[in-house]
């Protein structure tokens, strides 16, 4: 996927630039962008490290486990009978880690959950579909990467987007879940 985006876009831009006589301009724009990307990367690294540090305090305090325990009855209801009992724990852990923005912890848990839900079937079951859609629609309490980028860009209020972002991600998740429930009924 990425190699098509990268190759296709770069190729198209260079061909188009040459055809319209702006080939040199396109290349120098690319080189400028490469230089600027390093600056952004460094600015991002500082803010990112700060948030990861703070989130790690939350993780060490056992917040993920407690939040998970609070969520698991609701999740059991949401997923219904299709969820194998042994998958409930990784599903809960994955969604809590996502909520807290612990991406590094969320992915291995998600993979484990998906593996336990797959069970050698040919087609994905309702529970697996729902789990994938919830993950793809993203549920995060505080979008730390975005706040870090906004800080790097010199925003007067980098965290001002926190509440609208929570609302938007809630809408996307609810729509995803409702679509799943409708698709399940249709079969």
């Amino acid at each position: 996927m990425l190699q098509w985006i990268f190759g296709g876009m770069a190729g198209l831009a260079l061909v188009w630039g040459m055809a319209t006589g702006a080939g040199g301009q396109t290349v120098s724009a690319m080189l400028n962008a490469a230089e600027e990307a390093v600056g952004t990367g460094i600015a991002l690294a500082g803010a990112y490290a700060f948030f990861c540090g703070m989130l790690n305090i939350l993780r060490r305090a056992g917040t993920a486990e407690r939040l998970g325990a609070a969520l698991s009855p609701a999740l059991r209801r949401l997923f219904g009978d299709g969820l194998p009992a042994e998958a409930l724990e990784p599903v809960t852990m994955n969604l809590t880690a996502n909520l807290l923005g612990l991406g590094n912890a969320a992915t291995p848990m998600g993979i484990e959950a998906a593996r336990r839900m797959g069970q050698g079937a040919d087609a994905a079951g309702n529970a697996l579909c729902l789990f994938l859609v919830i993950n793809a629609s993203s549920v995060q309490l505080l979008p730390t990467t975005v706040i870090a980028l906004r800080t790097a860009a010199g925003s007067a209020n980098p965290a001002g987007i926190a509440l609208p972002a929570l609302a938007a991600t809630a809408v996307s998740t609810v729509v995803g879940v409702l679509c799943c429930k409708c698709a399940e009924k249709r079969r």
Partner: protein
Amino acid sequence: MNGTLCVFLLLCLGCGLIHRVPVYDAFLEGAKEGISTARRILPSLIAMLCVIRAFSSCGLMERLCALLEPAAAWAGIPKETLPLMLFKPLSGSASLAMLREILNECGPDSRAGLVASVMMGSSETVFYTCGVYLAAAGVKKSRHTIPCALAAWLAGSIAASLAVP
């Protein structure tokens, strides 16, 4: 300064202190992880920013946006955020680079900058996430997963434009 972040940081520290976490050590441990993540994404950030800049400097991005503008205007989505919206389901690093461009071009506190920031968090990299987890589950038919995930992405993008007045 918005209070959300202060409350969140206080919550982190408070939880840590109550549960007797060595907060300084825990912070350093997490920060180290954050630095290595940032280092890991730097090459792809460079790659994607180059491509996106080339695409917009040769005038192709403008044409693409002009093509989609009527539909965006109808849904209330600012046209500057269209590239981000389109790339969001495809690639995390491309959308990160795209967000950076919008924040620097239009300003982080302009309407386009705010909508783009909200949009960035409203959905995940749909195809990548689904691909990884479907491979882990070992199933071949994903059934209604992709259409439902894309519906969520579309709803999130429109909600992002509505959430910023």
